[in-house]
């Protein structure tokens, strides 16, 4: 039976009473004066005009001694060495792949930075170069770690560990990079029955938990068997919960996603995206997170 719901738009106000955080954050919009004191050094996101320090992006003002900078709320991903990212291959070039990671420039994955199938360790030859497309094609998704940053800001990735590599069946959710919390590990096997990779670049990959660890594969064989319906329901519910958290600008980490998932269980999966149900779920998740902290 077809279900079509339509509604009149409503003004979305701040949800509930926001918990009191330590110091009040100084929020600015482009063109706002940050300070008229000339003793400060200007950092990213600011410029000087008529002896006034003015913000050029919308965000939070950060002050470190004499340096004032504005950290934008919605910005492209800035790579840092050691970050886990999920990216999509856009080009296959001579000895490297170009990977899209929601940053200002496409990231680079060198042929020498991947694990060869079979786990052999040898120098990459001309045959390897010709067979690049057999490993990774345009459109493939990979999980990788940032190895270094080029001088122009482009990020160089590597997949030299068995936990990184090509991603198989699952769902990708794209969010703003500032919403992903930095943690010790970004690969989570959630108790509800699915696994999630929280890429620092804002790409979140939800996939069914693999039954056994495949040691010899090296991350390049894809499991093409159909995913069972119970796993699909968990994955769809997680995806909607993440969308709900993103709409209410909450930080994404394994606990927040799990609490949101548990709060959404009484509702149907497709109802989670309705504004009133979303608010209810987020309020409950937020309450549990506050109880956890305090």
């Amino acid at each position, binding site marked *: 039976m077809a*279900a079509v719901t339509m509604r009149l738009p409503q003004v979305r106000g701040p949800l509930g009473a926001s918990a009191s955080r330590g110091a009040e954050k100084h929020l600015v919009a482009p063109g706002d004066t940050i300070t008229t004191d000339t003793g400060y050094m200007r950092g990213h996101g600011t410029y000087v005009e008529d002896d006034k320090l003015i913000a050029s992006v919308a965000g939070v003002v950060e002050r470190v001694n004499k340096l004032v900078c504005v950290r934008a709320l919605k910005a492209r991903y800035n790579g840092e060495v050691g970050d886990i990212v999920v990216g999509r291959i856009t080009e296959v070039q001579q000895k490297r792949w170009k990977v899209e990671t929601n940053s200002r420039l496409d990231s680079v994955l060198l042929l020498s930075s991947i694990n060869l199938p079979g786990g052999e360790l040898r120098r990459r030859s001309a045959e390897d170069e010709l067979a690049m497309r057999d490993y990774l094609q345009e*459109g493939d998704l990979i999980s990788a770690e940032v190895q270094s940053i080029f001088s122009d800001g482009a990020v160089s990735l590597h997949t030299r560990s068995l936990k990184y590599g090509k991603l198989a069946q699952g*769902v990708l959710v794209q969010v703003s990079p500032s919403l992903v919390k930095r943690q010790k590990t970004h690969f989570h096997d959630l108790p509800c029955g699915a696994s999630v990779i929280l890429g620092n670049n804002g790409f979140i990959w939800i996939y069914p938990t693999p039954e056994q660890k495949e040691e010899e594969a090296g991350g390049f064989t894809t499991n093409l068997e159909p995913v069972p*319906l119970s796993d699909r329901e968990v994955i769809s519910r997680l995806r909607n919960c993440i969308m709900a958290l993103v709409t209410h600008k909450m930080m994404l980490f394994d606990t927040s996603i799990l609490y949101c998932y548990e709060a959404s269980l009484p509702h149907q999966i*497709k109802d989670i995206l309705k504004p009133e149900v979303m608010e209810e779920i987020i309020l409950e998740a937020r309450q549990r997170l506050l109880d956890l902290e305090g």
Partner: protein
Amino acid sequence: MASVVLSEAEKLYIVHGVQEDLRVDGRGCEDYRCAEVETDVVSNTSGSARVKLVDTDVLVGIKAEMGTPKLEKPDEGYLEFFVDCSSNATPELEGRGGEELGTDIANTLYRVFSCENSVDLKSLCINPREHCWVLYVDVLLLECGGNIFDAISIAVKAALFNTRIPKVHVLEDEEGTKEIELSDDPYDCIRLNVEEVPCIVTLSKIGYRHVVDATLQEEACSLASLLISVTSKGALTSMKKVGKGSLDPESIFEMMETGQRVGKSLHTALQKILDEEESLGTSRPKVGFLG
């Protein structure tokens, strides 16, 4: 049209999901995403509407102007469609890229409304062979998130419901020259009957089944789609196949049946929301684009 690149494994996941009637966001094959409809958003038009289907955003404005009737239909007014695909919608539509898509959508709209009794064109006539009302329907595509045809047709119907055409009186002198006088009361206007206005339902074939209201990812997995325009009573007014894949005649019949069923529920839901908005009258809080 905007498109996303997907890996083979992701496409396989989506296709298997559709087979089991559980799409990526938990919907069934015949469920629409939650739609937000608002009318009277643009003040200097005769009627306007904005429809938001999660990440597809469409704005329609209708202006009623006086013109001469067409030679083959001297006692009827007519509709003119113009579609503008904003560069904001997706980077592919930057510059001249949106023109092809715009003309494609406009031609589809002309075809959908070519049916004789979709809009009562005789009520738009003022003086046969001399003056009539021409309704210029302008569609602005603000954001492209899949399923733009459906969103545009819903917005056009809502805007036609909202259109208020001023009442005019024709005064005739002794010499026979006719003068057209606008009524003094600004609220004295004629409304259009939108009961027979059709809405487009897009059915995308994915694997062995078809889905309604496909997202961008689902459109990337579908090789062929059927655009059906259905009236509120379930009558089909036009049909168009898009996409480079082929469709089996059996599946076309199945898709037509689904389209009629879904079209009827779409019309009921839309009429309900339009009546609700109308009943709120001036006390309705206007959200517009700043909500």
